[in-house]
């Protein structure tokens, strides 16, 4: 198949994401994507701002890198500072952090599926021709236990939708791709999904209350170096007590119901109508995780619920070890980013990072970017020279390939339900499915972590913070630390250098930097770019196929594009260990 003429399709803004992302795709006249570039078009410079500040404050600054995955940067930050200073947090603090991690992940994944991703698969207007009775039957078939599945419920939902569409004021649903030939769901499945879009919207605010109990608010709950700020006193009305714990427990139980009776059934139902997407959008085939959910302290990576490791070339037979502190493993390039490196440097480990911004893109307003030069505010991170995908699919694959029974169970159950082989995971659909399967695991783990907390309290352990190394006067004059987490969107790492009680250098390499990175010196594309290759488009003017694959990664650009020093200053003398 020889492409004749190609045309450049620009999608900017990519909506239903966090931040500002631009995709330019080169599409053949057969409608197939021949090439694609991914460009982060915003930059904020938080690390520069962190320089010289109190490391105990860093979590709050870092947290504002992203308000969608609103806990992850705070968690990575307190862990980085604790790693540098050798602080070991009490068991309760670890468990409470795990509970906050899990509630964040589950809530974020549900929002992503219904409010950011579903409209790529669900035709809102088509739902108007659904038969409410048949929709109720469909719902009962895919999720027998879900209580809101009556004909009346769907008649009401359809009536609401009809009046809304008839009004001509479509608001957030305006000017989209309704009626596009790529939409394959029958009207009843569309109506069910629209109803559940609204149910999930009502529910998401509830699970956030777990953060409010422990962190005082959501978005942006409070964290603390050395533990968690919420004290526990089972016999006091001003602390975490039985009433607060019951609130948490109730939300955990509700989350399990939402994941098992709403999210997963909908996900599998929608997926069953798009089998072709199990062969589209696979991309790199390289996956990496740092791991998370410590069960025996942050130092024991073997006791994480999410294991650490890397998979290359879709080889599920081998999980390679990953050491984020090793200067030879994770390195960032800037050859296609709006930065330059000092003479002779092409790739640097985050502990050794130097950044010199140099915008060489077109003067705004512009029409196109040029992939032969620099074209993004994102750097190009590589692991041992390999472009890597991070995120739910990477986590599920590393867990699966590590031989973990809990991972295998949920993955195999979904594969058999959809009647597809394991290779189907290497795809847009696999990525979207992995997010749901991970939510299933996490909802179960939430309950287990809650039970661990209760057991600890029953045993009389109430400590939530250690203050032994709180005062900067107790700190060594120069220390470095690495903090990490598995954010909803993938592996997140913070590297901090503390000197004389202040932040000397702070670097973050975030999930979307891995996934949305521009190409490297060898011309190897980043994960988004690689995943878009070969994608057939029904109508390049209406880029719903591009949205499907890009959204399957759950982009977060505020995270991805914050990391650079705009003045190219050497932030500190850094000695690579």
């Amino acid at each position, binding site marked *: 198949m020889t492409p004749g003429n190609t045309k450049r399709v620009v999608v900017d803004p990519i909506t239903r994401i966090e931040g500002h992302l631009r995709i330019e795709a080169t599409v053949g006249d057969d409608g197939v994507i021949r090439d694609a570039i991914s460009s982060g078009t915003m930059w904020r410079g938080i690390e520069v701002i962190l320089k010289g500040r109190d490391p105990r404050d860093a979590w709050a600054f870092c947290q504002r890198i992203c308000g969608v995955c609103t806990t992850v940067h705070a968690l990575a930050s307190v862990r980085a500072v604790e790693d540098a200073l050798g602080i070991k947090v009490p068991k309760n603090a670890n468990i409470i952090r795990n509970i906050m991690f899990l509630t964040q992940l589950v809530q974020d994944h549900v929002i992503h599926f219904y409010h950011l991703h579903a409209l790529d698969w669900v035709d809102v207007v088509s739902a108007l021709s659904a038969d409410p009775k048949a929709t109720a039957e469909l719902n009962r078939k895919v999720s027998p236990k879900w209580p809101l599945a009556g004909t009346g419920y769907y008649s009401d939902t359809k009536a609401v939708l009809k*009046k809304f569409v008839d009004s001509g*004021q479509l608001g957030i649903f305006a000017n989209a791709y309704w009626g596009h030939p790529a939409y394959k769901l029958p009207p009843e499945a569309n109506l069910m999904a629209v109803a559940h879009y609204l149910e999930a919207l009502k529910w998401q*605010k509830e699970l*956030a*209350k777990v953060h409010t109990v422990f962190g005082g*608010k959501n978005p942006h709950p409070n964290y603390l170096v050395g533990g968690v700020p919420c004290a526990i006193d089972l016999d006091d009305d001003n602390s975490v007590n039985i009433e607060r714990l019951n609130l948490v427990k109730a939300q955990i139980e509700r989350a399990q119901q939402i994941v098992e009776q709403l999210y997963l059934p909908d996900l599998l139902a929608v997926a069953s109508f798009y089998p072709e997407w199990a062969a589209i959008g696979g991309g790199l085939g390289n996956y990496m995780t740092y791991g998370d959910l410590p069960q025996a302290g942050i130092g024991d990576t073997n006791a994480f619920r999410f294991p650490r490791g890397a998979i290359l070339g879709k080889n599920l037979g081998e999980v390679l070890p990953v050491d984020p502190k090793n200067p030879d493993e994770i390195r960032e390039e800037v050859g296609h980013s709006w930065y330059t490196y000092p003479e002779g440097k092409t790739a640097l480990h985050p502990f050794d990072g130097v950044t010199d911004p140099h915008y060489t893109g077109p003067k705004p307003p*512009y*029409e196109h970017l040029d992939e032969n030069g620099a074209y993004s505010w994102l750097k190009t991170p590589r692991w041992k020279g390999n472009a890597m995908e991070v995120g739910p699919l990477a986590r599920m694959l590393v867990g699966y390939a590590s031989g973990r029974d809990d991972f295998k169970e949920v993955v195999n159950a979904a594969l058999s339900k959809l009647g597809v082989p394991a290779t189907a995971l290497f795809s847009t659909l696999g990525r979207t499915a992995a997010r749901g399967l991970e939510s299933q695991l996490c909802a179960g783990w939430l309950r287990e972590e809650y039970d661990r907390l209760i057991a600890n309290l029953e045993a009389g352990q109430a400590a939530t913070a250690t203050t032994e190394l709180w005062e900067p006067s107790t700190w060594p004059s120069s220390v470095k630390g690495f903090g990490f987490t598995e954010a909803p969107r993938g592996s997140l790492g913070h590297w901090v250098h503390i000197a004389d009680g202040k932040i000397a250098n702070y670097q973050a390499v975030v999930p979307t930097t891995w996934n949305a990175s521009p190409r490297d010196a060898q011309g190897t594309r980043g994960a988004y770019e690689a995943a878009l290759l070969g994608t057939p488009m029904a109508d390049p003017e209406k880029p719903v196929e591009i949205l499907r694959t890009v959204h399957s990664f759950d982009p977060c650009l505020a995270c991805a594009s914050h990391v650079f020093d705009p003045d190219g200053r050497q932030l500190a003398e850094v000695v690579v260990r």
Partner: protein
Amino acid sequence: MSRRDPALRTTYDVLAQHGVSRREFLRFCAVTSAALGLPVSAAAEIANALQTKPRLPVLWLHGLECTCCSESFIRSSHPIVQDVILNMISLDYDETLQAAAGHQAEECRKQVMHDSPGGYVLAVEGNAPLNDGGVYCTIAGQTFESVLRETAKHAKFVISWGSCAVNGCVQAADPNPTGAVPVSEIIHDKPIVNVPGCPPIAEVMTGVLTYVLTFNRLPELDRYGRPLVFYKKRIHDKCQRRAFFNAGQFVEEWDDEGARKGWCLYKMGCRGPTTYNSCSNVKWNDGVSFPIASGHGCIGCSETGFWDNGPFYNRLSAVPLPGVEATPDTIGKIAVTAAGIGVGAHIAAALVKKARDRKGKHTEPHDMATEDQS
């Protein structure tokens, strides 16, 4: 798709169309009234207003930000966000939620600007970087600054959501590498309602919108453009730990006995005494808690320049306070007789009382809590 004149339809029309019963509607009005701190009689006024006022198109822009404001907005409990976006406003452009992307999304924005000049609200989340020609934030190849100017031109008024839009927030903290500036430094010819916070409380955000829809006017603003209904009082004024402050009972270190008993966090750096917001009043996430109640001091996230007013765990002793001339560190050593407003004065008052109670026994702020534990 054709667009019906929004002026022809009222919020109540739409609510009724969407299957909301009259009874539910009136209950919503009562809850809204209560949320706004209005008298019971105002519920009828709200009900009347929503039945006679047209729906308002809203264009919601995102500049340099972290999207925490949008996330907060969708956490609103009264009204729930489904009601807001389906029934109360017409959210015609919002990159976070809208289905259309690319040029189809931009068409949505331009169509409203064209069809309803002077009739739409511009809501801004985030801010514009001005350094280096604005290249640090572009949308559809256009600088955010130019998008902001263009969209503001025919707006009825502007809402600045969150501290980014109001005061610059984190990316404007020293040394503000991108030259990020608040909306008010770019838009000078429109009324701007400033709703600061990182993020603002969900019900404050929906409360501001509902106020406008209900009373057909902007809420009364203070000299910083903040709605008085939500930013008139300091967090300290209604803090549930205030009694411990007055009594001189303070958390001295994390997870100590005072922390477990919920004592005052002033000595742990709490910014409640200098922060104007509704956290201790409306509270967060449907009233579940707020930062101080959950054991961490307020970091002052709705105040201008709060990021540079750190470290967060250093107490406010260096901050000048109205009506007193001494800081809490020195206050025990000087005579303060008038109980004025401010932290120093309160500590002084507590001290004086304590000193009297103990018949002249010398007391320093540092050992007050320890003594009270005994």
